[in-house]
């Protein structure tokens, strides 16, 4: 019972349960210094990488976003919020993303939960590893290839052709929001299944027996114990898929055919085609802000509902 919850976490200063300074009191100044140096050395490569390839570009994008488009395209120094004021010009892309990302993540969740539940709680022990491998194996082929395959399946010579053969004419599947949604669920399903599986697998089976013993029907046991305790996994999967979907480019391009436009598509267009960097930057910044809000909200909800002390999102 006293397992995970009581471990002091050196990486999480607020979460640790030991009074501040306990560590310092027990170690000499010298060892502490050496320990800090070691920590710094260990973190240096990752920090450097992130500064060069994440922080600096982000700062550049932030600066671009308050600038102006140079007459020949690109960036011209200025300070204006005109780009942000212009955001409604891409309202459709925002709208599509803001609707299809959560809807896609939710559809993914609906498909993934029963699979994860079966794998963690119902599947025979000796099949479990094989079944888990089957979930992951599609990842071995690039998403691009698999999405192309869907293009043919949904395209004129795919399912619609088969339907025409049995007399159902003029069915359009490709280049519809439905096709994008299908591609999303297909592509991101493993990312949703795995975290839910992990949280269900960790679930103490005796809690389910205790619930039944106390008079709870299987349904109320599921709602009151299983679902509640797997929520951290659900929220991890949901935010993971949701955030990736907010920046999704490939699936709407291939299966939406330019008709279902995502922010990702808008960004490609603005940076590479019309070369309006400041406007693209403003959109990118907005997208990042939205992602952060989504993450924080998901974390809060998950922590509140599951009663967990700390929730690891990714």
């Amino acid at each position: 019972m006293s397992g995970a919850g009581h471990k002091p976490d050196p990486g999480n200063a607020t979460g640790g349960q030991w009074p501040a300074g306990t560590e310092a009191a027990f170690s000499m100044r010298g060892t502490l210094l050496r320990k800090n140096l070691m920590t710094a050395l260990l973190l240096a490569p990752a920090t450097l990488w992130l500064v060069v390839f994440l922080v600096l570009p982000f700062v550049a994008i932030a600066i671009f976003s308050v600038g102006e488009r140079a007459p020949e395209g690109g960036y011209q120094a200025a300070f204006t919020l005109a780009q942000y004021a212009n955001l409604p010009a891409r309202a459709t892309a925002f709208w599509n993303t803001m609707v299809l990302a959560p809807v896609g993540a939710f559809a993914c969740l609906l498909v993934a939960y029963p699979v994860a539940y079966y794998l963690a709680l119902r599947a025979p022990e000796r099949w479990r590893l094989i079944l888990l491998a089957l979930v992951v194996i599609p990842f071995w082929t690039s998403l691009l290839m698999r999405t192309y395959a869907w293009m043919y399946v949904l395209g004129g010579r795919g399912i619609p052709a088969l339907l025409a053969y049995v007399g159902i004419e003029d069915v359009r599947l490709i280049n519809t929001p439905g096709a994008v949604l299908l591609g999303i669920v297909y592509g991101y399903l493993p990312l949703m299944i795995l975290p839910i599986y992990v949280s269900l697998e960790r679930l103490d089976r005796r809690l389910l027996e205790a619930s039944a013993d106390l008079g709870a029907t299987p349904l109320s046991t599921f709602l009151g114990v299983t679902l509640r305790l797997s929520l951290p996994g659900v929220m991890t999967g949901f935010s993971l898929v949701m955030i990736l979907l907010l920046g999704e480019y490939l699936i709407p391009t291939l299966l939406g055919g330019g008709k279902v436009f995502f922010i990702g598509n808008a960004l490609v267009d603005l940076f590479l085609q019309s070369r309006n960097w400041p406007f693209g930057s403003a959109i990118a910044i907005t997208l990042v802000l939205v992602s952060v809000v989504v993450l924080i909200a998901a974390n809060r909800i998950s922590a509140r509902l599951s009663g967990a002390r700390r929730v690891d999102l990714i």
Partner: protein
Amino acid sequence: MTAVPDIEFRAVTKRYGAVTAVSGIDLAVPPSAFVALLGPSGCGKTTCLRMIGGFEQPSEGQVLIRGRDMAGTPPYRRPVNMVFQQYALFPHLDVEDNIAYGLRQARPRLSSREISQRAGEALAMVRLAGYGRRKIHELSGGQQQRVALARALVNKPAVLLLDEPLAALDKKLRTDMQIELQNLQREIGITFVLVTHDQEEALSMSDLVCVMNGGRIVQLGQPNEIYDEPADLFVADFVGKTNLLSGTVAGLSGDLVDVALADGSVISARKRAPLSRGEAVSLSLRPETLSLGAAGSGSLKGIVRNRIFLGSTAEYAIEVEGIGSLLAKADHQIGRDNLFKPGEPVAIGFAAGAPLAFPQPKNNGTNQRENHHVEILS
């Protein structure tokens, strides 16, 4: 017994594939009893408890609760509640919500006022008033144990099932909880069924002990009966400390039997099963029935190897030539001067009829002691 038993097993057998965990058990637990199912790991005691709770279904036979056959009745429709090993408290609920969990499942629904009132009473009963809003992980092991008790008892079950409830507590706390459980059982007056591998716990708490071995009930009786009149060698060995000696029957006279030991000495014992002359037997000698005296008297001669001083008593490991080491327990309230010292020769005497003679077991598997292993479910 005329009253309907609270729990009744009728020829219950439980098989897992080729393994038979419980075979042909008949048991009737009278109302308001404190029963202990005692046995080594793998003896089937936990399986029996889980069949009462409804987590396992018997392969053959019937389990009845207050006269009703429970076949096909799921756990959530049975009038029993269980205190789980390691307690199985809900980590996402606080103490009060854990206790109220069962009350919230009741149909027709109870008013929220009644729920909180009864949860409060249950908390007070286990002396945890004021702890209602604590998180489970903030409680000590002993407190969690009491929350588990309150969570089960608040539903007013016909029978309370306890699965090794004290195993996770330290020795001091365990003794306290033994008394607390005994008091609770008397206060509430419902039947408690306790599963344990700890013979001390079974003897000290319950008023009926059911000793199990190899999926069968070996003996059912009051604690003193189990200790003083063990049904067979397994019970004699498993319950309490004892010395086991082998010998052969040299003479028979009524209830008594003369047993010749390996070194040629003859001891008079009480037989616990029919025996015939020349038959190989095992003798059980409780350490406290051995009397120690100065060398020269008594039936066996030995040398003190170790002395374990225990305050009011002392235990001696005595080496007897040709027989081996014997454990003797002597009362030393009278004076500290007569403690024997290691290396000192002593004579060992036996109270008449105190040694018990059992036929030697047919196979070696029955008297193995493995009471310190953790019970593995299913």
